[in-house]
C-alpha cells in the first residue's frame, strides 16, 4: 500500500538536498563576502558607493 521506495526517496533527497543547497549557498556567500571585503579594503576612499 505505502510506496516505501518513494518514502525512502523523499526522505533521502530531502535530508541531503537541504544540506547540499544550504552548504552551497554558504560557500558562495562566503566567497562573495570575502570578495566584497577585499574590494572595500582596496577602495579605502570615503566614497565607495557601488550598489
Amino acid at each position: 500500500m505505502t510506496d516505501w521506495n518513494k518514502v525512502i526517496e523523499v526522505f533521502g533527497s530531502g535530508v541531503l538536498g537541504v544540506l547540499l543547497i544550504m552548504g552551497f549557498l554558504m560557500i558562495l556567500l562566503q566567497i562573495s563576502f570575502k570578495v566584497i571585503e577585499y574590494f572595500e579594503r582596496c577602495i579605502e576612499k570615503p566614497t565607495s558607493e557601488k550598489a
Partner: protein
Amino acid sequence: MFRILEDLVLSSGLVNLTPGNLVMWLVAFTLFYLAIKKQYEPLLLLPIGFGILIVNLPLTFLMEPEQGLVWFFYHYGIEKDIIPPLVFLGLGAMIDFGPLIANPKTLLLGAGAQVGLYVTFFAAILLGFDLKEAASIGIIGGADGPTTIYLGSKLAPHMLGATAVSAYAYMALVPIIQPPIMRLLTTEAERKIEMGKIRPVSRLQKIVFPIITAMIVMLLAPPSAPLISMLMMGNLFKESGVVERLTNASSNELINIVTIFQGLAVGATMTAAVFLNPKVLLVFCLGLFAFCVSTASGLLMAKFMNLFLKVKINPLIGAAGVSAVPMAARCVHKVGSEANRRNYLLMHAMGPNVAGVIGTVVAAAIFLKNLG
C-alpha cells in the same frame, strides 16, 4: 402567526446545529482564551479562532464554493498561494540577516534543524498517513507558519487547519518545549562556551545577501520561488535603504492586512466534519514530535560541526535552527546564560534562527518537487 414562528425557527441555524459544531465552538473559545488571556500568538490565533467559530454556525454558507465570503478569501488567498508569499515579503522587510551574514556557517545549522522535518515525515507514514499528509505534518517542525500553510494547502488541504494551528501553538510554546531537550543533549561545559563578538557586516554585504540568496536558492530549488523571492525582495527593500516607503508598507500595513485574511481563511477550513477526526489528534502529537526532533537535530548538527571547527561554537545555537523567530533564539540565550552568566548568545543564535527560515522553505520546496 404560529406558521411564521415555525418558519423562523426552521430557517434558523439552530435546528441544524450538530454536536460537532458545539465541539468546534469550544475549540474556538479555547483559541480565544489562549490568544487573549495567555497572549499566545494573538495576531494569528484570534482570527483563526474566529474563522472556526463562524464556519460552525450552520446555514451561513460562508465557505460555500463560489458564494461564501470567506471561501473567496480562502480560494484566492490560500488555495491560489497569494497570502503566504505576501507574509514572507513583510518578514523579509523585518528580518535582520546580519548575524547570518557575519557567520555564514550558521546556514548549516539552519539546515540541520530541517532534518527533523524528514524524521517526522517518516514517523507520520509509520502511523498511517499518506505521503502528502506526512509531508505537510513534517513541515510543522520548521516552525514557520506561512510555509506550513503554503505546503499544506498544496499537499493536504483537508488537514490545513490542524497543521497551521499546531505550528503556531507550538511556536508559542518553544520556551517550554526546547530547554529540556537542549539540556539533555549538551554538556554543562558545552553550554558554557562563549562565542565572543560578532563580525561587523558592511552595508554592501547586506545588500548583496538577498540577491545572491534569491538567485542560488531559486536556481537549485525552483519550487521555492514564490516564498524565497518575496522574502528576499522584502529584505532587499530593507537593506537598500532607498525605498523606506516600500519597506514600511511591506513590514507594517501589507503584512497586517494579509495576516487577517490568512488567519480567518485557515480557521474557516475547520468545519466540524473535517476537523473532528481522530487523525487530527495525531497531527497535534506529531507536530510536537516534529518540534522536538528538529531541536535535537539542530543541536546535533552543531556538535557535529564542532568536530571540525577550530573555534568551537556553542552547540545550543543549533537549537535556534528551528525558525520560530525570535522565540528559539531567546530560548538559547536563556539556557546559555543559566550555564554561564556571561554568556550572551542572543545575537549568535539569531544567525541559525533566520537561516532556519530559509532552510524550511528549501525543505518545503523539496517536498513539493517530489510530491507536488
